[in-house]
């Protein structure tokens, strides 16, 4: 029996005693990085400013076991007509098992930024591209997805001076008959994944 299997069993046992587990240690590359999964529930709304359309997002942030753990506010700027969101990229072409192209240069359909504030008041700021995709349900409703890859550019409290990366998996259900760009608030559900290095672990940049 491998040590990894035994550790996995203990982690599973801990999960059943205490609810949803923290992220398994196998997912960590180094003990100095902090891995966080949260989900959020709230609303978004389209706003127009200076001739551009934006989506402003306001949600509450939860641990995966359902405990409230702060809030998330963000802004998304679509840079294409919303009708374009019904399309999607072409399937990728092989190879997939060797480090070589082709890799299609998928265009960016929107850009995002946000602030994630945790229950103790500490926050993380991040910026990055956020692609969008819309589908129609069989009952005529729509779903709007946001898929964002972001760089952490700072934070406050325990995350002051941190660096890292994060992802956003956003999803909105739009009832049948409601335009995708309606200015009324709409439902927003997100899953947020963070990989964070706190300031105390960060060294100096190498010289040129």
């Amino acid at each position, binding site marked *: 029996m491998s040590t990894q299997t035994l550790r996995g069993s203990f982690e599973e046992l801990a*999960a059943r005693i205490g609810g949803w587990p923290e992220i*398994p240690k196998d997912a960590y*590359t180094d003990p100095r990085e902090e891995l966080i999964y949260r989900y959020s529930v709230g609303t978004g709304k389209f706003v127009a400013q200076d001739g551009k359309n934006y989506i402003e997002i306001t949600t509450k942030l939860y641990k995966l076991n359902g405990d409230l753990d702060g809030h998330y506010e963000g802004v998304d700027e679509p840079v294409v007509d919303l009708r374009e969101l019904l399309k999607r*990229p072409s399937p990728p072409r092989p190879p997939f098992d060797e480090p070589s192209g082709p890799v299609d240069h998928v265009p*960016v359909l929107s850009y995002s930024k946000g602030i994630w504030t945790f229950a103790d008041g500490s926050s993380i700021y991040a910026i*990055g591209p956020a692609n969008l995709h819309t589908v129609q349900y069989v009952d005529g409703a729509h779903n709007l997805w946001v898929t964002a890859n972001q760089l952490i550019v700072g934070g406050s409290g325990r995350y002051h001076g941190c660096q*890292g990366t994060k992802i956003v998996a956003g999803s909105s259900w739009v009832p049948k008959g409601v335009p995708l760009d309606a200015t009324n608030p709409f439902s927003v559900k997100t899953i947020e994944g963070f990989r964070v290095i706190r300031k105390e672990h960060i060294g100096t940049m190498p010289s040129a």
Partner: protein
Amino acid sequence: MHDSRTLSEIIRNIGDKIGTAQDLPRIAHSNWREEVIVTYCVGQGKFSSGDQFAPPLAFINLQMDMYDLHGKWLGFQLGVHESQSTVPDLLAVWPPSAPWTAPPVPHPEVKEWTKGIWTFEDGSEIHAVGPAQSHLVPFNDGSFLFMVTTGQTITNGTGRYAGCHGTKQATGTAFVPAGLIQSGKFPAPGITFTARTLEVFRILKKKDLGQETLNPTPAKAP
């Protein structure tokens, strides 16, 4: 009496008597039709070589096992990452952009892209592509953490995911020992490393999709 069970099996039996661990709360789904999969992956990355390694152009192949958050094996992924970022690009921290709750929104240049296939235990596949961004963080002992984040769109699938739509995201890291960045030996052609990622899928299956998505009207000729 001899007990042939492994220690791991005994621990799992204790867990079974306590109860089942929680799944992702349903409220985190867009609605009841949406399937959400929250995972982590562990595997190997390999840099390109030969004419596929011409800095800043480089490719990385990822071959990884995929697990749910309880450590249950879900399948595997094969993917390729193309980067045209220089090392200074990777070390840069973009300037903050307050206010965080109102425009404007920065438009960082994209120099990296990804493609991949995620194969689940029953053989069903999800194919996805999307832009990416890498980042190098210096630790205070001279080593580095190589970080990548990608936001992907699902392009197609097979098996139970044939005709599906959705998105997926990943953020992964790899450890870079002290001295490699400083001496120009990372990235380098053909080198391999252990990679670990967090990955999320949001999926709608074909049976739940309407005609506007399944049979989109072709654009009219001008």
